[in-house]
């Protein structure tokens, strides 16, 4: 059952990821990205990380992607027209991609032979309580540094936007 769901949602995630690139319309691409985020959240759920799964949906599939779609709708971006590609790129593209993936897979298999597969139900400690304790004890400094980084990004965005307004 676990493996069935894993392969189902892994397949959806990959299919949506391909669709992000292939779709012509920016809204369709953005929605495919929502599909990727949501199916990754299901994979988190299978690993026992309930809090992370819900945070993934709230933050990425919800807040971030809604802003993407909001901006696309606001700019009223239309469907892209496909630029003509060179004959060589059309011919060589797919085989080269397969070759790249194969060599990457080979390198990973060689580099980490004892990696094994992910075991479901063996990974514990994904509840909100565990994550809260971890964040505010062991990882307090990285957590605070990250929040300062985000604050800097927000201030930067405001400064840039103000310059535009004047």
């Amino acid at each position, binding site marked *: 059952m676990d493996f069935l769901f894993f392969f189902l949602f892994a397949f959806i995630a990959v299919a949506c990821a391909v669709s992000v690139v292939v779709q012509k319309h920016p809204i369709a691409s953005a929605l495919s990205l929502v599909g990727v985020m949501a199916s990754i959240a299901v994979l988190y759920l299978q690993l026992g990380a309930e809090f992370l799964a*819900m945070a993934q949906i*709230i933050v990425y599939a919800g807040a971030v992607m809604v802003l993407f779609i909001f901006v696309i709708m606001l700019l009223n971006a239309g469907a892209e027209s496909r630029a003509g590609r060179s004959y060589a790129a059309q011919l060589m593209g797919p085989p080269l991609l397969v070759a790249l993936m194969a060599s990457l897979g080979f390198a990973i298999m060689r580099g980490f032979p004892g990696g094994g597969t992910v075991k479901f139900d063996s990974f514990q400690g994904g*509840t909100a309580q565990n994550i809260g304790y971890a964040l505010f004890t062991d990882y307090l400094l990285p957590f605070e540094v990250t929040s300062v980084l985000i604050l800097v990004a927000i201030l930067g965005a405001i400064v840039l936007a103000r310059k535009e307004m004047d």
Partner: protein
Amino acid sequence: MEFIIITLIKLAVIAFVLLTALAYIQWVERKVIAHVQVRMGPSRVGPHGLLQPLADVVKLITKEGVMPPHANKFFYLAAPILAVFMALISISVIPFGTEFTVLGHRVMMQLTDLNVGVLFILAVSSMGVYGIALAGWASNNKYSLLGGLRSSAQMISYELPMSLALAAPLLIAGTLSLRGIVDSQAGYNLGFIPKWAIFTGPFPQIFSFIIFMIAAFAETNRIPFDLPEAENELVAGFHVEYSSMSFAAFFMAEYSNMVTVCSVATLLFLGGWHPLWPESMGSNFAAPLILAGAGAICLYHGLNPARPFDRFTLPAFAVIFFGLAGLMAFPPLVPVLTPLFWFLAKLSFLLFVFIWIRATLPRFRYDQLMSFAWKFLFPAALLNLLVTGFLVALVS
């Protein structure tokens, strides 16, 4: 196997009750607003217009679905499905009563008790924005697009104070499971003040309850925050171009969202199914007494009819109310039905407040809406969360 059968039965019951309730909330809303405005409201189809929702359903199903030209076909059709799906799915984690045993099987009055139930509801409601935003964009209409944009901006803005207001009672409850949150509010202070989140704890959550309710109005696009469908500026906003069942889907999504936010407010702030006063002071008798009182009023007006047909309809209602009162007072059913009664009573009260405010308040202006969210509601929710967190840390 037993689990699957019980779940399927619960699923069927909950889906049937919810969908019927959604149709009848609309009847209640029309009736209440009509009486506030000194009108009669629906009164033609069935006694007191009670069959009006049924007639509306038949009307909406048999109407022709019109597709506007140059609309994006896929997203135009997907948007209402997405909206109604995201709205209905959150009912699956909402508990509405205690556990009981029937024929040797333990049954929870809830589809599933997630240990991240609150986050699940937030996640699903944040996905619900897509339905409205896409509907506005895909209809290829400038009014719809404006409505969709407004609604996504409004829902993102009000999600922040709503989530912050939700976080404060969670600090006191110490769990994210909705059933666990309700269980943490059992009992009474001083013997008669219920330990609901708005009355108790190191810091009574009355402010976060008010902030949550205000944000909930905005999240469900209700008056005074119904900017996305402001009729006199945008015709009908994001669903201008929708007709037939796809229009009904948006309607159902709106009412279902209302039920969800009211249930969450009931569970987190108003103690779920815990009664207002202790059982030792006779809270178990409240339900049969209220229902019998309603029956008596119906019977009285049936015997002194204001309109000729009241002579037949009102006594029938009286019999139904007396029957329900008898069911509530039937000893073996008391532990099952009394919690359900209290939960539904609180839920209906909050839903009534939604309707009441719709009949009372005018609409915000768009800049007022945004500055209210960011300059008042958000800092207030943040302050409330800080004070609550500080006091919880101090006490524990």
